[in-house]
Structures are given as structure tokens and as C-alpha cells.
């Protein structure tokens, strides 16, 4: 159960094309990442809605293929 950093970035970029993305590998095991996503797509949305956009970008992989993802969203 793991996901390459590049795959994670590509999935988010595909769903939020204009996003600025910063990913940190927290444990070096392709399973624990933190991700900061900056985009105007988040404007006017609650934190929950913003995070759901990021989770939806990962589709069913979240919680299955990817165990731990720390999410921070920034609306521009």
C-alpha cells in the first residue's frame, strides 16, 4: 500500500490544474505525505470543501493505497 510522490502530485495537478503544490515525504515510505495546495479554486469555500476537492482528486486511493496524508489548503 503506497503511492509515489510524483503520482500524488500528478493526481492533484490533474484535478486542480492551476494549483501550486508542495509535497513532503514524512516517513520515506511512500505512505506518509504532507501536501500544501494553493489555488484560487478554493476561494469562497469552507475548509471542509477545500479538503474534499483534494481528496476527490485522489479518488478511491485515499485511505486504501495511501495511508496518511496531511492536507493544508490555501485559497488565493
Amino acid at each position, binding site marked *: 500500500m503506497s503511492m509515489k510522490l510524483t503520482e500524488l502530485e500528478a493526481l492533484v495537478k490533474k484535478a486542480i490544474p492551476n494549483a501550486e503544490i508542495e509535497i513532503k515525504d514524512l516517513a520515506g515510505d511512500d505512505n506518509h505525505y504532507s501536501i500544501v495546495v494553493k489555488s484560487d479554486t478554493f476561494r469562497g469555500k469552507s*475548509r*471542509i470543501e477545500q*479538503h*474534499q476537492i483534494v*481528496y476527490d482528486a*485522489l479518488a478511491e486511493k*485515499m*485511505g486504501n493505497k495511501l495511508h496518511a496524508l*496531511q492536507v*493544508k489548503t490555501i485559497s488565493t
Partner: protein
Amino acid sequence: MDENINDWISKQIASTDVVLFMKGTPESPQCGFSSQVVQILNYLGIEFSSINVLEDEEIRNGIKEYTNWPTIPQLYIKSEFIGGADIVREMFEENELKEFLEEKGIVTN
């Protein structure tokens, strides 16, 4: 569980002011994110009821569908979904969580 899972979840969420769906129990959390939220709630001195999703796969999956939120833990305050560990921590760090609780009439430290 014979009762419809969504009805059961709705009842739990409405049962007390603050409800935490988590992995493990407050005394022995089984996941770092769940543990973080427990520590924040304890720090604020809030009484809460918790549900260990590890005890029943139907709860573990049901809660994710219930809120269209793919991860555990999940925090509810006065039946409103607040978020997972990231959002609860962010709100706590920006002092929004304490304000939110007090607005809802929940006493904190």
C-alpha cells in the same frame, strides 16, 4: 448491525454535544491523527463521546460515506461535521476551535 448504518450514525452524532469517530479509544488511540484530536479535546477540557471505528468495519466505511470524507478521525460538534485531524488542528492553532465551541455553548478550559 441490523439497524440501518446511517440511522445509527445519525443517532450517535446527535447523542452528545461532541462526538469523535476515531481509531482506538481516547485512552489508547491506535493512530497518530486520532491521538492528535483527542489531545486537543483534552487540552480544551471538553467532554466528548468517542466511537472506535476499528471495532466494526461497517461503521468504519459507513462514516466515510456518511460525510463523503475518506479518513478517520472525524469530529462532530452539535451534530455538525467539523473535519478530520488537519482541520481540527488548524482551527485549534488559530484559536477558532475554542471560539466555535463557546459559540455553541460548550464550556472549555
